[in-house]
């Protein structure tokens, strides 16, 4: 989309507890197509960070290659970002996270980046329970290379030229559930009211949080016959669990009346409230979540919301017994055993 960036004027905008407006959480202007679902996800991320009162420098953005991966430049320009090689964002996030677990890691990926070239790294980041929010902007198509099917394209979904996809899709949520992820959600870029609380909850989840966002590609996959178009997604969109995220203690105790919601206190502070919309769906039952996604798919409905949550899993830091202070802050004298230790050690080599 070619246009001029908006001038930075925010004096009339509300400020969060850090005195920042949403505009302080923006990045450079998007170069994606007008109407791209990814830009809505970007806007939701900006909103979520602003609402959580997180200092921009407390976040680290990581991504690979593709339309989705470009978006890390489009939000939070005051945060460090790294846009690495195709499909390998999880490994960069793993190393970065290992040496400083105090930052909020936001990985942005796409269906090509995560489910084809990067399927292995996606899986292993989950296995390690890397503490990060992993947003998979899923449009079923390769945009930058002009319209090839991706691994998430549904069986029978048609390309822009009318050719049906004849391979079975990879469902990132089912994969994440089978690999042991503790936070698995699906959302739609067109429903910000659902996406923003999920992003907030995912950021506060201590462990790997996947949000698979159906994010239509207006240029290559928004036609009749596509199962990842806006029209199709609106038609079959089915919120299974309604999610509210309450970040602050005073709001937890004061603002909300008892509404019958399931309440989950998050490790990093805040409270998650989950309300079932129409069924006996239990977002703490992994097997039910897998069954619902796998068997429920036959009716064409796109089940969304926080599909699974387990707050009691050790993340990578805990599993590796990493210290409270980030490794990148440890003074050298705590790392180097010194000349005396070296001399003593070498007795074994004599």
């Amino acid at each position, binding site marked *: 989309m070619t246009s001029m960036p908006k001038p930075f004027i925010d004096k009339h905008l509300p400020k969060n507890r850090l005195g920042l407006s949403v505009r302080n959480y923006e990045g450079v202007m998007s170069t994606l197509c007008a109407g791209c679902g990814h830009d809505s996800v970007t806007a939701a991320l900006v909103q979520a960070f602003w609402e959580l009162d997180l200092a921009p420098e407390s976040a680290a953005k990581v991504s690979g290659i593709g339309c989705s991966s470009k978006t890390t430049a489009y939000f939070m320009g005051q945060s460090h970002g*790294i846009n690495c090689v195709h499909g390998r964002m999880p490994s960069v996030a793993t190393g970065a996270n290992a040496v*400083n677990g105090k930052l909020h890691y936001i990985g942005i990926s796409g269906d090509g980046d995560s489910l084809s070239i990067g399927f292995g*790294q996606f899986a292993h980041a989950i296995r390690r329970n890397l503490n990060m929010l992993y947003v998979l902007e899923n449009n079923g198509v390769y945009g930058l290379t002009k319209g090839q099917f991706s691994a998430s394209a549904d069986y029978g979904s048609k390309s822009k030229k009318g050719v049906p996809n004849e391979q079975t899709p990879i469902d990132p949520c089912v994969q994440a559930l089978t690999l042991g992820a503790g936070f698995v959600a699906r959302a739609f870029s067109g429903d910000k009211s659902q996406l923003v609380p999920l992003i907030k909850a995912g950021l506060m989840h201590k462990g790997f949080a996947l949000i698979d966002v159906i994010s239509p590609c207006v240029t290559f996959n928004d036609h009749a016959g596509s199962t990842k178009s806006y029209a199709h997604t609106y038609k079959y969109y089915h919120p299974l669990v309604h999610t509210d995220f309450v970040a602050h203690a005073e709001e937890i105790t004061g603002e909300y009346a008892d509404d019958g919601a399931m309440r989950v206190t998050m490790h990093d502070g805040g409270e998650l409230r989950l309300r079932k919309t129409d069924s006996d769906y239990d977002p703490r039952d992994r097997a039910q979540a897998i069954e619902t996604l796998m068997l429920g798919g036959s009716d064409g409905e796109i089940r969304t919301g926080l599909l699974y949550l387990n707050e009691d899993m050790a993340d990578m830091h805990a599993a590796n017994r990493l210290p409270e202070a980030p490794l990148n802050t440890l003074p050298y004298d705590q790392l180097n055993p010194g000349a005396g230790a070296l001399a003593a050690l070498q007795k074994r080599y004599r």
Partner: protein
Amino acid sequence: MKDVVETPGEVRVNDFVIKIGNVNGTGSASANGLLMKAIFRMGVPVVGKNLFPSNIQGLPTWYEIRITRDSYFARSGTADFVVAMNAETYARDLAEVSPGGFLLYDSTWPRPDLHGRSDITAIGVPLARMCNEQFDNARTRVLMKNMAYVGAVAGLTGIDVEVIRGLVTEMFGTKAHLIDANMKAIELGLNYVREHYPDPLPLRVEPMDGTAGHILIDGNTAAALGCVYAGATFGAWYPITPSTSLMDGFKSFCEKFRVDRDTGEKRFCIIQAEDELASIGMAIGAGWNGARAFTPTSGPGISLMSEFIGFAYYGEVPVVLFDVQRAGPSTGLPTRTQQCDLTLAAYASHGDTKHILLFPANPKECFEMAVQSFDLAERFQTPVFFMTDLDIGMNDWMIPELTWDDSYRPDRGKVLGKDELEAIEKFYRYEDRDGDAIPYRTLPGVHPKGAYFTRGSGHNWKGGYTEDSDEYKEVLDRLTQKWKNAAAAVPAPVVIKCGRPARRAIVSVGGCDGAVREAMDRMAADGVHLDYLRVRGFPFSQEVDDFIAAYDEVFVVEQNRDAQLRTLLINETSADKTRLIPVLDYAGMAANPKFIVEGITAHLETVGDAA
């Protein structure tokens, strides 16, 4: 074949090679290590080379112990005393014994094929029978057979059994029954040879004072120690021979030195990645975030890592890669040594990329250069390749004890902290503020003013995305300059002059060093005098250029088929390639002086000039 030891003419004290042929997975490594260390403890310099198969159990394996009173540190390529424990390789082992040499075999079974040689002495010891009689369990019998030959070899060559006893005691600590069982097996062999071969062999180990202040250590362990002393806190890896023991070493030293005794917290993080693509990605992520990070691997790993290496080069992220080279191409010979990744590493990744390489020659340099690698990676904000190989990495080398200067402080390079960011108006990631081609960097989480976007796509000096030709070229040109500047910072070459006017010289690298020096001695004895330069870093310093220019011809000695060091010299110095004569060995074995002497001699004969 002679069945008893006759008194031969020449007695060789502390100057011969014992070679043991055995079966992989039978515990022979402990027995061979014990023999070598006992000789070392007697004050006698040793060189040990383990030749092992890519196999868990059953294939042939050999171990060479060169006893070298003159402190040479290459393998000699000969075998004066062969211990043939492997029926499968008997014929081959027999053929390898030097004329006038000795062969010890297990006489439990008849070996009619031994009769092929009349110029050596065969010594039969019924190792299996004795161990079967003395030990119950089948596995113990196999293990103890090895200890029994240790006793036999000790008895025949004069290795001090009390020194062996001391080592066995250290090896098993408080497990008295294991000490007793092993000593019993050793004494079986010892007593048998004392009874049946009472006359000493002419190959003798006698105490001397040649190992004081020295240790026996492998290069991977020494490099791992270097990582600890450098203050590396993050390592990611995917297991691959022959680099695996580097991470094993780092882990064990960190467990020893870096675990908080009260809380159990670890001041390091090691991640076994799902593949090499992930391990380099993790190391880059950690380096980007301000930790000293590394990944140990071998050639196949470097191939897989190549895309990320280009990213770290272009994004200017510090990271250290330890390439413990093995014989390629493809899977190649995973348990054999080569220097075959030189050009791969020098220009790793697509597009215009050039890297900093360090070339240690022995475990002492592994320790020192591991530390230097981290300093250089952070100072120049770029991947640094530590180019070692299987011979250096996995064999025990006798080196002077490692020392450490407690005044050392890591060179963390140009990193702006919170206060510095506060003080400047605006931060631009790739701005050459100091005119040295090295920009300043910032770490995530420190200050919003320090935020920047690291990208592998085209970027300008501000760090912004660009497709503008001039902006793109400006960054690329600065990277070239930065790389060139590193020539003065990498370890300087080592030059050894022969002390006479020389028209020819040798240039070599890494683990060829011992073989080159010995070859120089041998050739000097024949009147051929050569100077020698060993490169230790890439890009090459001016000194390398000047050295080559001073000679009519320079022999480039290296262990690969394609003369890769020579290629780099042609590419990156002003040397005339017609004056760079390749001397190559790519058989996969640790370097020995023979190929150098033969290669140089052949060339001199061709040109009809012996000086």
